[in-house]
């Protein structure tokens, strides 16, 4: 699938607990780009992703998606994005398959199996999430990247808890996504070895 989308964030002002995280922040994300948000702990990287995703409201600023203002009508953007935050967003009492189907109900059994193969979870389809390690849970959360067809990915520390092979698999998926014209906005302290990124530093 080939995507063609753009995201324009202009003059965003984010405040949290009466503390300015960023003011007058503007950036543009075009099809086929990865924007890596960098900054010290507490600089507002996760908050920026939450603002774009619509989980937080900025004090000021405008967010345009495909030329349309989505600042106050975020559903248009939300239907075209995958947001993976700090929390895995997985129910511990459900199996891996049940969790993934709750997000991506149109997934076929073959598709599910192939994604779990890629993520080295092939034998865990019926395993409850509560029985998985932190790294395995992260892999399950990231499996949504393979199962959804959204142009925009918002990834908050996607490599946290992943081992070397896990990082490589996710990096190659990010590369494939941008080759198809997708956009990725991510926060990570880790250097990406195989993906060319543009950096946005929050101070």
């Amino acid at each position: 699938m080939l995507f063609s989308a753009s995201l324009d964030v202009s003059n965003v002002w984010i405040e949290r607990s009466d503390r300015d995280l960023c003011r007058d922040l503007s950036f543009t994300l075009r099809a086929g780009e990865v924007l890596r948000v960098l900054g010290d702990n507490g600089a507002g990287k996760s908050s920026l992703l939450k603002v774009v995703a619509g989980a937080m409201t900025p004090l000021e600023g405008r967010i345009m998606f495909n030329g349309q203002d989505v600042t106050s009508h975020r559903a248009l953007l939300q239907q075209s994005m995958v947001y993976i935050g700090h929390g895995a967003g997985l129910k511990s009492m459900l199996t891996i398959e049940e969790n993934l189907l709750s997000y991506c109900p149109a997934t076929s059994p073959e598709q599910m199996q192939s994604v779990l193969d890629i993520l080295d979870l092939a034998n865990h389809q019926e395993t409850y999430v509560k029985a998985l390690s932190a790294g395995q849970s992260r892999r399950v959360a990231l499996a949504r990247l393979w199962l959804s067809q959204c142009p925009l990915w918002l990834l908050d520390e996607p490599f946290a808890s992943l081992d070397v092979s896990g990082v490589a698999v996710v990096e190659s998926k990010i590369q494939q996504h941008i080759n198809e014209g997708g956009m990725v906005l991510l926060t990570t302290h880790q250097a990406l070895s195989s993906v060319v990124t543009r950096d946005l530093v929050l101070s």
Partner: protein
Amino acid sequence: MTYLTFGRTQCRVLWRRKQDTVNALLFFVMVVALFPLGINPSAAFLAPAAGGIIWCAAVLAILMAIDGIFKEDFRDGTLEQWVVCGLSLPVLMLIKVAIHWFAVVFPLLLVMPLVSEMLMLPSGSFWVLVATVLAGTPCLFLLGAIGAALTVSLKQGATLVILVILPFYLPVIIFATSAIEASQVGLPYIGFVAMLLAVSLLSLVVSPFMTAVAVKASVN
């Protein structure tokens, strides 16, 4: 995510975490069973008080169940995913509350004949009791969800939920027990049941939006 998969997931999670529902049910039965032992087991005392005892026990059991309605979702990050999933958050809240209402109230209704007999509620008032439970408890859940959403990010939120929500429960308890009392003395009770239904319908209109706002604020 779709509304259907959301509802199915909620049902699955509730089914696999049955202890929450079972705890509420056990609490309800225990409170009702202890009343006659602690105060007065005579029919002359119990029969007129039965409606009040059952309703107080039901309210406490519901408060117990409603406190944790969003706790797990907040901890595991699913609450945040609902906010950003692109579906209407008030509708998602309504679905979740409706499923929880059914999961808690249906078992209560199943034991209602037993507890009514235990408290010697006149048989003519039993169906009035059932009608008040069906008409009044949706309001308790819908209002309780607002309190639970407001306090979900707080570590000691349970006490706050009770303090915030309990005053709003009082009219429901008064209307419900008045309906049962009226039926016991042969007075018309439909007006009280209608009031309960009206309060629940009003909550149905207002609560999902307020719960959604509270959830967004908590995720923030």
